[in-house]
Protein backbone atom coordinates (compact mmCIF):
# COMPACT_ATOMS: atom_id res chain seq x y z
CA UNK A 1 0.00 0.00 0.00
CA UNK A 2 2.79 2.45 0.73
CA UNK A 3 4.02 1.91 -2.79
CA UNK A 4 1.13 3.91 -4.17
CA UNK A 5 0.99 7.69 -4.16
CA UNK A 6 -2.37 9.28 -4.89
CA UNK A 7 -2.32 12.86 -6.09
CA UNK A 8 -5.91 14.05 -5.98
CA UNK A 9 -7.03 17.28 -7.68
CA UNK A 10 -3.99 19.12 -6.41
CA UNK A 11 -3.57 22.85 -6.80
CA UNK A 12 -0.43 24.61 -5.63
CA UNK A 13 0.81 28.20 -5.62
CA UNK A 14 4.05 29.63 -4.29
CA UNK A 15 2.54 33.09 -4.24
CA UNK A 16 -1.20 33.74 -4.05
CA UNK A 17 -2.98 34.05 -7.36
CA UNK A 18 -0.29 32.37 -9.40
CA UNK A 19 -0.97 28.63 -9.37
CA UNK A 20 1.92 26.47 -10.48
CA UNK A 21 -0.14 23.28 -10.38
CA UNK A 22 -3.73 23.45 -11.54
CA UNK A 23 -5.82 20.44 -10.70
CA UNK A 24 -3.38 17.55 -11.06
CA UNK A 25 -4.67 14.02 -10.49
CA UNK A 26 -2.27 11.09 -10.81
CA UNK A 27 -1.98 7.72 -9.11
CA UNK A 28 1.60 6.48 -9.01
CA UNK A 29 1.81 2.69 -8.78
CA UNK A 30 4.69 0.19 -8.80
CA UNK A 31 6.57 0.46 -12.07
CA UNK A 32 8.71 3.00 -13.86
CA UNK A 33 7.18 6.40 -14.70
CA UNK A 34 8.79 9.37 -16.40
CA UNK A 35 7.53 12.93 -16.05
CA UNK A 36 8.37 15.15 -19.01
CA UNK A 37 7.63 18.73 -19.96
CA UNK A 38 9.42 22.02 -20.37
CA UNK A 39 10.82 24.03 -17.48
CA UNK A 40 8.08 25.82 -15.61
CA UNK A 41 5.47 23.14 -16.28
CA UNK A 42 5.36 22.23 -12.59
CA UNK A 43 7.37 18.99 -12.57
CA UNK A 44 9.71 19.90 -9.73
CA UNK A 45 6.84 21.31 -7.71
CA UNK A 46 4.91 18.07 -8.18
CA UNK A 47 7.95 16.10 -7.10
CA UNK A 48 8.25 18.07 -3.86
CA UNK A 49 4.59 17.44 -3.11
CA UNK A 50 5.17 13.69 -3.21
CA UNK A 51 7.18 13.58 -0.01
CA UNK A 52 5.62 16.44 1.87
CA UNK A 53 8.27 19.11 1.28
CA UNK A 54 5.35 21.09 -0.09
CA UNK A 55 1.71 20.60 0.79
CA UNK A 56 -1.14 21.28 -1.62
CA UNK A 57 -3.13 24.53 -1.51
CA UNK A 58 -6.11 22.47 -2.62
CA UNK A 59 -6.54 18.73 -2.94
CA UNK A 60 -4.49 16.05 -1.27
CA UNK A 61 -1.48 13.80 -1.65
CA UNK A 62 -1.60 10.38 -0.02
CA UNK A 63 1.52 8.27 0.38
CA UNK A 64 -0.07 4.87 0.91
CA UNK A 65 -2.54 5.93 3.56
CA UNK A 66 -0.54 8.82 4.96
CA UNK A 67 -1.71 12.33 4.14
CA UNK A 68 1.29 14.57 3.45
CA UNK A 69 -0.38 17.44 5.28
CA UNK A 70 -0.32 15.45 8.51
CA UNK A 71 3.20 14.10 8.43
CA UNK A 72 6.68 15.60 8.37
CA UNK A 73 8.90 14.97 5.38
CA UNK A 74 11.42 13.33 7.69
CA UNK A 75 8.72 10.81 8.63
CA UNK A 76 7.68 10.21 5.02
CA UNK A 77 11.34 9.73 4.08
CA UNK A 78 10.97 6.12 5.15
CA UNK A 79 8.68 5.50 2.20
CA UNK A 80 9.68 8.09 -0.37
CA UNK A 81 13.27 8.81 -1.39
CA UNK A 82 14.20 11.71 -3.66
CA UNK A 83 17.51 12.05 -5.50
CA UNK A 84 17.97 15.77 -6.06
CA UNK A 85 19.80 17.17 -9.07
CA UNK A 86 22.86 18.59 -7.40
CA UNK A 87 24.81 16.19 -5.18
CA UNK A 88 26.62 19.15 -3.62
CA UNK A 89 23.31 20.21 -2.10
CA UNK A 90 23.44 17.27 0.28
CA UNK A 91 26.93 15.85 0.72
CA UNK A 92 28.46 16.89 4.03
CA UNK A 93 30.20 13.89 5.57
CA UNK A 94 33.93 13.48 5.25
CA UNK A 95 33.74 9.82 4.32
CA UNK A 96 31.72 8.38 1.47
CA UNK A 97 30.43 5.47 3.55
CA UNK A 98 29.16 7.83 6.26
CA UNK A 99 27.40 9.90 3.63
CA UNK A 100 25.64 6.91 2.12
CA UNK A 101 24.63 5.64 5.57
CA UNK A 102 23.20 8.99 6.70
CA UNK A 103 19.75 8.47 5.20
CA UNK A 104 19.34 4.84 6.31
CA UNK A 105 20.33 5.69 9.88
CA UNK A 106 17.92 8.63 9.98
CA UNK A 107 14.96 6.47 9.03
CA UNK A 108 15.65 3.99 11.79
CA UNK A 109 17.81 1.23 10.31
CA UNK A 110 20.27 -0.52 12.61
CA UNK A 111 23.95 0.26 12.13
CA UNK A 112 24.52 -3.19 10.72
CA UNK A 113 21.67 -3.02 8.23
CA UNK A 114 22.52 0.53 7.18
CA UNK A 115 26.10 -0.51 6.50
CA UNK A 116 25.02 -3.54 4.51
CA UNK A 117 22.60 -1.56 2.38
CA UNK A 118 25.10 1.23 1.84
CA UNK A 119 27.67 -1.21 0.49
CA UNK A 120 25.09 -2.85 -1.74
CA UNK A 121 23.97 0.50 -3.13
CA UNK A 122 27.55 1.54 -3.83
CA UNK A 123 28.13 -1.74 -5.65
CA UNK A 124 25.09 -1.06 -7.82
CA UNK A 125 26.40 2.38 -8.70
CA UNK A 126 29.82 0.87 -9.46
CA UNK A 127 31.61 3.02 -6.90
CA UNK A 128 33.04 0.38 -4.61
CA UNK A 129 36.47 0.91 -3.10
CA UNK A 130 36.00 4.57 -2.16
CA UNK A 131 34.28 4.08 1.19
CA UNK A 132 36.94 5.89 3.20
CA UNK A 133 37.53 8.72 0.74
CA UNK A 134 36.32 12.28 1.18
CA UNK A 135 33.54 12.90 -1.33
CA UNK A 136 34.91 16.32 -2.22
CA UNK A 137 38.23 14.82 -3.27
CA UNK A 138 36.34 12.95 -5.98
CA UNK A 139 34.97 14.22 -9.28
CA UNK A 140 31.48 15.63 -9.72
CA UNK A 141 30.09 12.61 -11.66
CA UNK A 142 31.30 10.34 -8.86
CA UNK A 143 29.65 12.57 -6.26
CA UNK A 144 26.44 12.27 -8.25
CA UNK A 145 26.63 8.50 -7.94
CA UNK A 146 27.30 8.81 -4.22
CA UNK A 147 24.14 10.88 -3.88
CA UNK A 148 22.10 8.31 -5.77
CA UNK A 149 23.57 5.49 -3.66
CA UNK A 150 22.66 7.35 -0.49
CA UNK A 151 19.00 7.27 -1.49
CA UNK A 152 18.99 3.71 -2.82
CA UNK A 153 20.49 2.56 0.48
CA UNK A 154 17.36 3.80 2.23
CA UNK A 155 15.42 1.06 0.44
CA UNK A 156 12.27 3.15 0.15
CA UNK A 157 9.19 1.83 -1.63
CA UNK A 158 9.09 4.91 -3.78
CA UNK A 159 12.23 6.29 -5.45
CA UNK A 160 12.11 9.64 -7.25
CA UNK A 161 14.85 11.03 -9.49
CA UNK A 162 15.18 14.66 -10.53
CA UNK A 163 16.81 14.62 -14.00
CA UNK A 164 19.37 11.92 -13.20
CA UNK A 165 21.11 11.94 -16.57
CA UNK A 166 22.41 15.50 -16.47
CA UNK A 167 26.15 15.60 -17.09
CA UNK A 168 26.39 11.81 -17.37
CA UNK A 169 28.42 10.23 -20.14
CA UNK A 170 27.19 7.24 -22.14
CA UNK A 171 28.34 4.71 -19.55
CA UNK A 172 26.60 6.67 -16.83
CA UNK A 173 23.31 6.90 -18.70
CA UNK A 174 23.36 3.19 -19.42
CA UNK A 175 24.04 2.40 -15.77
CA UNK A 176 21.15 4.63 -14.69
CA UNK A 177 18.86 2.89 -17.14
CA UNK A 178 19.86 -0.44 -15.66
CA UNK A 179 19.22 0.76 -12.11
CA UNK A 180 15.85 2.25 -12.94
CA UNK A 181 14.77 -0.97 -14.66
CA UNK A 182 15.99 -3.10 -11.74
CA UNK A 183 14.12 -0.99 -9.19
CA UNK A 184 10.96 -1.34 -11.25
CA UNK A 185 11.44 -5.08 -11.49
CA UNK A 186 11.73 -5.25 -7.68
CA UNK A 187 8.22 -3.85 -7.47
CA UNK A 188 9.15 -0.35 -6.41
CA UNK A 189 7.42 2.78 -7.59
CA UNK A 190 10.01 4.67 -9.62
CA UNK A 191 9.30 8.21 -10.76
CA UNK A 192 11.76 10.33 -12.68
CA UNK A 193 11.74 13.83 -14.12
CA UNK A 194 13.43 13.38 -17.48
CA UNK A 195 14.68 15.80 -20.10
CA UNK A 196 16.53 13.24 -22.20
CA UNK A 197 13.72 11.86 -24.34
CA UNK A 198 15.84 8.97 -25.59
CA UNK A 199 16.31 7.90 -21.97
CA UNK A 200 12.59 8.29 -21.33
CA UNK A 201 11.55 6.28 -24.32
CA UNK A 202 14.00 3.49 -23.67
CA UNK A 203 13.58 2.75 -19.99
CA UNK A 204 10.14 3.90 -18.87
CA UNK A 205 6.80 2.10 -19.00
CA UNK A 206 4.65 5.14 -18.38
CA UNK A 207 5.10 8.71 -19.57
CA UNK A 208 3.32 11.65 -17.98
CA UNK A 209 3.73 14.93 -19.80
CA UNK A 210 2.93 18.25 -18.17
CA UNK A 211 2.41 21.77 -19.40
CA UNK A 212 1.43 24.90 -17.48
CA UNK A 213 0.66 23.05 -14.29
CA UNK A 214 -1.58 20.40 -15.81
CA UNK A 215 -1.23 16.84 -17.03
CA UNK A 216 -1.34 16.83 -20.81
CA UNK A 217 -0.79 13.14 -21.48
CA UNK A 218 -0.48 10.00 -19.38
CA UNK A 219 0.13 6.63 -20.97
CA UNK A 220 2.56 4.24 -22.58
CA UNK A 221 5.52 5.73 -24.46
CA UNK A 222 4.17 4.37 -27.75
CA UNK A 223 1.00 6.41 -27.27
CA UNK A 224 2.43 9.56 -25.75
CA UNK A 225 5.28 9.95 -28.20
CA UNK A 226 3.01 9.67 -31.20
CA UNK A 227 0.45 12.11 -29.86
CA UNK A 228 1.69 15.10 -31.81
CA UNK A 229 -0.86 17.49 -30.37
CA UNK A 230 0.05 16.54 -26.81
CA UNK A 231 3.77 16.78 -27.52
CA UNK A 232 3.32 20.23 -28.97
CA UNK A 233 1.37 21.40 -25.93
CA UNK A 234 4.08 20.15 -23.62
CA UNK A 235 6.79 21.65 -25.84
CA UNK A 236 8.72 18.40 -26.04
CA UNK A 237 10.07 16.47 -29.00
CA UNK A 238 9.80 12.69 -29.12
CA UNK A 239 12.89 10.45 -28.83
CA UNK A 240 15.26 10.40 -31.82
CA UNK A 241 14.11 6.97 -32.98
CA UNK A 242 10.49 8.05 -32.95
CA UNK A 243 11.43 11.15 -34.94
CA UNK A 244 13.18 8.90 -37.44
CA UNK A 245 10.15 6.62 -37.61
CA UNK A 246 7.93 9.66 -38.18
CA UNK A 247 10.16 10.91 -40.97
CA UNK A 248 10.06 7.49 -42.63
CA UNK A 249 6.31 7.19 -41.99
CA UNK A 250 6.55 3.92 -40.11
CA UNK A 251 3.29 2.74 -38.59
CA UNK A 252 4.73 1.21 -35.44
CA UNK A 253 6.49 3.20 -32.72
CA UNK A 254 10.04 2.04 -31.96
CA UNK A 255 11.46 2.87 -28.55
CA UNK A 256 14.69 0.89 -28.77
CA UNK A 257 17.18 0.27 -31.58
CA UNK A 258 16.11 -3.37 -31.83
CA UNK A 259 12.49 -2.34 -32.24
CA UNK A 260 13.36 0.23 -34.90
CA UNK A 261 15.35 -2.26 -36.93
CA UNK A 262 12.59 -4.84 -36.60
CA UNK A 263 9.76 -2.49 -37.57
CA UNK A 264 11.72 -0.87 -40.36
CA UNK A 265 12.61 -4.20 -41.94
CA UNK A 266 9.03 -5.42 -41.54
CA UNK A 267 7.48 -2.36 -43.11
CA UNK A 268 10.12 -1.30 -45.62
CA UNK A 269 12.17 -4.34 -46.50
CA UNK A 270 9.62 -7.18 -46.59
CA UNK A 271 11.65 -9.17 -49.06
CA UNK A 272 14.50 -9.58 -46.60
CA UNK A 273 14.78 -12.34 -44.03
CA UNK A 274 15.87 -10.78 -40.80
Amino acid at each position, binding site marked *: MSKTIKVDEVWFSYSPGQPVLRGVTITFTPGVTAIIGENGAGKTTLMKLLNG*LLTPSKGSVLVGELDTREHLTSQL*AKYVGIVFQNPDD*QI*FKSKVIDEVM*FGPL*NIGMSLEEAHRRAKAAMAELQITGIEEENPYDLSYPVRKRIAIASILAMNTEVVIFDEPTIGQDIAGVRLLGKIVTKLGAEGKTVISIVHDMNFAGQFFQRIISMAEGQVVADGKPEEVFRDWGGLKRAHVSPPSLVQLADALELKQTPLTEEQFIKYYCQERLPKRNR
Partner: protein
Amino acid sequence: MQQLSLYIEKETFIHQKVDPITKLTYFIAVTIMAFLMPVLAGAIILFLLQLLLLLWARELRRAGKLMLGILIVLISLFIIQGMFHPDNQVLLWQLGPLRFYQEGLMVATTITLRMLNMISAGALLILTTSPNHLMEACERRGMSPKLGYIITSIFQMIPIMLRNAAVIQQAQESRGMNVKGNLWRRFQALIPLIVPLILSSLYSIRERAIALEVRAFSAKGKKSFLHEEKILPAMYLIRLFIICSLAGVTIWRVCT
Protein backbone atom coordinates in the same frame (compact mmCIF):
# COMPACT_ATOMS: atom_id res chain seq x y z
CA MET B 1 15.70 37.36 -8.11
CA GLN B 2 16.30 40.74 -6.56
CA GLN B 3 19.54 42.16 -5.36
CA LEU B 4 19.74 42.32 -1.62
CA SER B 5 19.74 46.05 -1.08
CA LEU B 6 17.45 48.61 0.44
CA TYR B 7 17.47 50.74 -2.66
CA ILE B 8 14.15 51.29 -4.39
CA GLU B 9 14.01 53.48 -7.43
CA LYS B 10 11.73 56.48 -6.95
CA GLU B 11 11.06 59.65 -8.89
CA THR B 12 12.42 62.19 -6.44
CA PHE B 13 15.15 64.79 -6.75
CA ILE B 14 17.36 63.00 -4.28
CA HIS B 15 16.92 59.62 -5.95
CA GLN B 16 17.37 60.75 -9.49
CA LYS B 17 19.39 63.96 -9.57
CA VAL B 18 21.72 63.89 -6.61
CA ASP B 19 24.83 61.88 -7.43
CA PRO B 20 26.24 59.21 -5.09
CA ILE B 21 29.38 61.15 -4.19
CA THR B 22 27.37 64.12 -3.00
CA LYS B 23 25.26 61.82 -0.85
CA LEU B 24 28.35 60.08 0.47
CA THR B 25 29.87 63.48 1.32
CA TYR B 26 26.63 64.36 3.09
CA PHE B 27 26.69 61.16 5.15
CA ILE B 28 30.28 61.58 6.26
CA ALA B 29 29.93 65.28 7.01
CA VAL B 30 26.68 64.94 8.96
CA THR B 31 28.08 62.08 11.04
CA ILE B 32 31.11 64.17 11.98
CA MET B 33 28.94 67.19 12.68
CA ALA B 34 26.69 65.12 14.93
CA PHE B 35 29.67 64.22 17.07
CA LEU B 36 31.17 67.70 17.10
CA MET B 37 28.00 69.67 17.77
CA PRO B 38 28.62 71.64 20.99
CA VAL B 39 25.01 72.25 21.98
CA LEU B 40 22.05 69.92 22.16
CA ALA B 41 19.85 72.37 20.31
CA GLY B 42 22.20 72.15 17.34
CA ALA B 43 21.94 68.38 17.23
CA ILE B 44 18.16 68.57 17.41
CA ILE B 45 17.98 71.09 14.58
CA LEU B 46 20.29 68.93 12.48
CA PHE B 47 18.06 65.93 13.09
CA LEU B 48 14.92 67.85 12.16
CA LEU B 49 16.57 69.05 8.94
CA GLN B 50 17.42 65.47 8.10
CA LEU B 51 13.84 64.36 8.69
CA LEU B 52 12.75 67.06 6.25
CA LEU B 53 15.18 65.79 3.64
CA LEU B 54 13.98 62.23 4.16
CA LEU B 55 10.41 63.42 3.81
CA TRP B 56 11.31 65.16 0.55
CA ALA B 57 12.89 61.93 -0.68
CA ARG B 58 9.73 60.06 0.34
CA GLU B 59 11.81 57.72 2.46
CA LEU B 60 10.72 58.91 5.91
CA ARG B 61 8.77 55.76 6.67
CA ARG B 62 11.54 53.35 5.73
CA ALA B 63 14.15 55.42 7.51
CA GLY B 64 11.85 55.45 10.52
CA LYS B 65 11.86 51.66 10.48
CA LEU B 66 15.65 51.64 10.54
CA MET B 67 15.65 54.01 13.50
CA LEU B 68 13.08 51.87 15.25
CA GLY B 69 15.56 49.06 14.96
CA ILE B 70 17.76 50.64 17.60
CA LEU B 71 14.87 51.58 19.86
CA ILE B 72 15.74 48.96 22.43
CA VAL B 73 19.33 50.15 22.56
CA LEU B 74 18.14 53.72 23.10
CA ILE B 75 15.70 52.80 25.83
CA SER B 76 18.30 50.84 27.76
CA LEU B 77 20.70 53.74 27.25
CA PHE B 78 18.26 56.12 28.91
CA ILE B 79 17.60 53.76 31.77
CA ILE B 80 21.22 52.98 32.52
CA GLN B 81 22.58 56.49 32.08
CA GLY B 82 19.60 58.08 33.78
CA MET B 83 19.98 55.94 36.87
CA PHE B 84 23.66 55.17 37.18
CA HIS B 85 25.79 57.88 35.56
CA PRO B 86 28.66 58.86 37.92
CA ASP B 87 27.92 62.58 37.64
CA ASN B 88 24.30 62.16 38.66
CA GLN B 89 23.18 64.77 41.20
CA VAL B 90 19.93 66.49 40.28
CA LEU B 91 16.92 64.18 40.59
CA LEU B 92 14.43 64.74 37.78
CA TRP B 93 11.99 61.93 38.16
CA GLN B 94 11.24 59.12 40.52
CA LEU B 95 9.23 55.97 39.87
CA GLY B 96 9.06 53.97 43.10
CA PRO B 97 12.62 52.92 43.93
CA LEU B 98 13.89 53.97 40.45
CA ARG B 99 15.56 57.37 40.38
CA PHE B 100 16.37 59.21 37.14
CA TYR B 101 18.87 62.08 37.29
CA GLN B 102 19.27 65.06 35.00
CA GLU B 103 22.98 64.61 34.20
CA GLY B 104 22.61 61.01 33.09
CA LEU B 105 19.52 61.76 31.03
CA MET B 106 21.36 64.59 29.29
CA VAL B 107 24.21 62.25 28.37
CA ALA B 108 21.74 59.70 27.06
CA THR B 109 20.00 62.38 25.01
CA THR B 110 23.28 63.52 23.49
CA ILE B 111 24.28 60.01 22.51
CA THR B 112 20.80 59.30 21.16
CA LEU B 113 20.84 62.37 18.93
CA ARG B 114 24.25 61.43 17.60
CA MET B 115 23.03 57.96 16.70
CA LEU B 116 19.80 59.20 15.18
CA ASN B 117 21.65 61.75 13.08
CA MET B 118 24.09 59.15 11.87
CA ILE B 119 21.36 56.67 11.00
CA SER B 120 19.28 59.29 9.22
CA ALA B 121 22.21 60.34 7.09
CA GLY B 122 23.07 56.73 6.38
CA ALA B 123 19.45 56.04 5.49
CA LEU B 124 19.37 58.92 3.05
CA LEU B 125 22.44 57.53 1.35
CA ILE B 126 21.46 53.86 1.29
CA LEU B 127 17.76 54.11 0.56
CA THR B 128 18.20 56.45 -2.39
CA THR B 129 21.34 55.07 -4.03
CA SER B 130 21.88 51.80 -5.85
CA PRO B 131 25.00 49.98 -4.63
CA ASN B 132 26.25 49.58 -8.20
CA HIS B 133 25.95 53.31 -8.83
CA LEU B 134 27.76 54.18 -5.62
CA MET B 135 30.60 51.71 -6.23
CA GLU B 136 31.01 52.90 -9.78
CA ALA B 137 31.25 56.50 -8.60
CA CYS B 138 33.98 55.50 -6.14
CA GLU B 139 35.82 53.48 -8.76
CA ARG B 140 35.86 56.46 -11.10
CA ARG B 141 37.64 58.34 -8.38
CA GLY B 142 40.31 55.76 -7.73
CA MET B 143 38.84 53.01 -5.59
CA SER B 144 40.11 49.60 -6.64
CA PRO B 145 37.61 47.97 -9.05
CA LYS B 146 38.29 44.68 -7.32
CA LEU B 147 37.05 46.09 -4.03
CA GLY B 148 34.03 47.55 -5.79
CA TYR B 149 33.32 44.16 -7.32
CA ILE B 150 33.51 42.42 -3.97
CA ILE B 151 31.05 44.84 -2.38
CA THR B 152 28.45 44.77 -5.16
CA SER B 153 28.67 41.03 -5.64
CA ILE B 154 27.78 40.50 -1.99
CA PHE B 155 24.40 42.05 -2.70
CA GLN B 156 23.72 39.55 -5.43
CA MET B 157 25.22 36.59 -3.67
CA ILE B 158 23.36 36.65 -0.39
CA PRO B 159 19.90 35.99 -1.86
CA ILE B 160 21.42 33.17 -3.89
CA MET B 161 23.01 31.63 -0.82
CA LEU B 162 19.73 31.87 1.04
CA ARG B 163 17.92 30.12 -1.78
CA ASN B 164 20.62 27.49 -1.85
CA ALA B 165 20.27 26.98 1.88
CA ALA B 166 16.57 26.28 1.41
CA VAL B 167 17.30 23.65 -1.25
CA ILE B 168 19.89 22.01 0.97
CA GLN B 169 17.43 21.84 3.82
CA GLN B 170 14.89 20.14 1.57
CA ALA B 171 17.44 17.59 0.39
CA GLN B 172 18.43 16.69 3.95
CA GLU B 173 14.84 16.55 5.17
CA SER B 174 14.13 14.13 2.36
CA ARG B 175 16.82 11.91 3.81
CA GLY B 176 15.00 11.71 7.10
CA MET B 177 16.70 14.55 8.92
CA ASN B 178 14.35 16.29 11.31
CA VAL B 179 14.73 20.06 11.21
CA LYS B 180 11.84 20.86 13.50
CA GLY B 181 11.67 20.03 17.17
CA ASN B 182 13.63 20.97 20.25
CA LEU B 183 16.69 23.17 20.39
CA TRP B 184 19.16 20.30 20.54
CA ARG B 185 17.66 18.71 17.47
CA ARG B 186 17.78 21.95 15.56
CA PHE B 187 21.40 22.36 16.60
CA GLN B 188 22.25 18.88 15.34
CA ALA B 189 20.58 19.75 12.07
CA LEU B 190 22.97 22.63 11.51
CA ILE B 191 25.99 20.72 10.25
CA PRO B 192 24.19 18.92 7.41
CA LEU B 193 22.92 22.34 6.39
CA ILE B 194 26.02 24.46 6.79
CA VAL B 195 28.66 22.15 5.36
CA PRO B 196 27.04 21.74 1.92
CA LEU B 197 26.23 25.45 1.90
CA ILE B 198 29.82 26.46 2.52
CA LEU B 199 31.31 23.86 0.22
CA SER B 200 28.98 24.61 -2.67
CA SER B 201 29.54 28.33 -2.15
CA LEU B 202 33.30 27.79 -2.31
CA TYR B 203 32.84 25.71 -5.41
CA SER B 204 30.74 28.38 -7.11
CA ILE B 205 33.20 31.09 -6.07
CA ARG B 206 35.97 29.16 -7.75
CA GLU B 207 33.98 28.71 -10.94
CA ARG B 208 33.08 32.36 -10.90
CA ALA B 209 36.74 33.27 -10.45
CA ILE B 210 37.44 31.45 -13.70
CA ALA B 211 34.58 33.26 -15.40
CA LEU B 212 36.00 36.57 -14.20
CA GLU B 213 39.44 35.72 -15.60
CA VAL B 214 37.84 34.93 -18.93
CA ARG B 215 36.31 38.41 -18.87
CA ALA B 216 39.68 40.08 -18.34
CA PHE B 217 39.17 40.85 -14.66
CA SER B 218 42.95 40.68 -14.18
CA ALA B 219 43.76 42.81 -17.19
CA LYS B 220 46.21 45.61 -16.51
CA GLY B 221 45.36 49.15 -17.39
CA LYS B 222 42.62 51.59 -16.60
CA LYS B 223 39.01 50.49 -16.56
CA SER B 224 36.34 52.29 -18.56
CA PHE B 225 32.64 52.69 -17.81
CA LEU B 226 29.55 51.92 -19.87
CA HIS B 227 27.44 54.53 -18.15
CA GLU B 228 28.21 58.21 -18.44
CA GLU B 229 28.52 60.13 -15.26
CA LYS B 230 26.32 63.20 -15.35
CA ILE B 231 26.68 65.51 -12.38
CA LEU B 232 24.55 68.61 -12.27
CA PRO B 233 26.55 71.80 -11.59
CA ALA B 234 24.29 72.42 -8.61
CA MET B 235 25.79 69.37 -6.95
CA TYR B 236 29.13 71.08 -6.57
CA LEU B 237 27.39 73.95 -4.80
CA ILE B 238 25.65 71.51 -2.50
CA ARG B 239 28.91 69.78 -1.68
CA LEU B 240 30.50 73.14 -0.98
CA PHE B 241 27.63 74.04 1.30
CA ILE B 242 27.94 70.78 3.20
CA ILE B 243 31.68 71.19 3.67
CA CYS B 244 31.29 74.78 4.81
CA SER B 245 28.69 73.69 7.33
CA LEU B 246 31.07 71.08 8.61
CA ALA B 247 33.84 73.65 8.84
CA GLY B 248 31.48 76.01 10.66
CA VAL B 249 30.50 73.44 13.24
CA THR B 250 34.14 72.44 13.72
CA ILE B 251 35.17 76.03 14.37
CA TRP B 252 32.24 76.48 16.71
CA ARG B 253 33.28 73.43 18.67
CA VAL B 254 36.91 74.48 18.88
CA CYS B 255 35.94 77.90 20.16
CA THR B 256 33.70 76.69 22.98
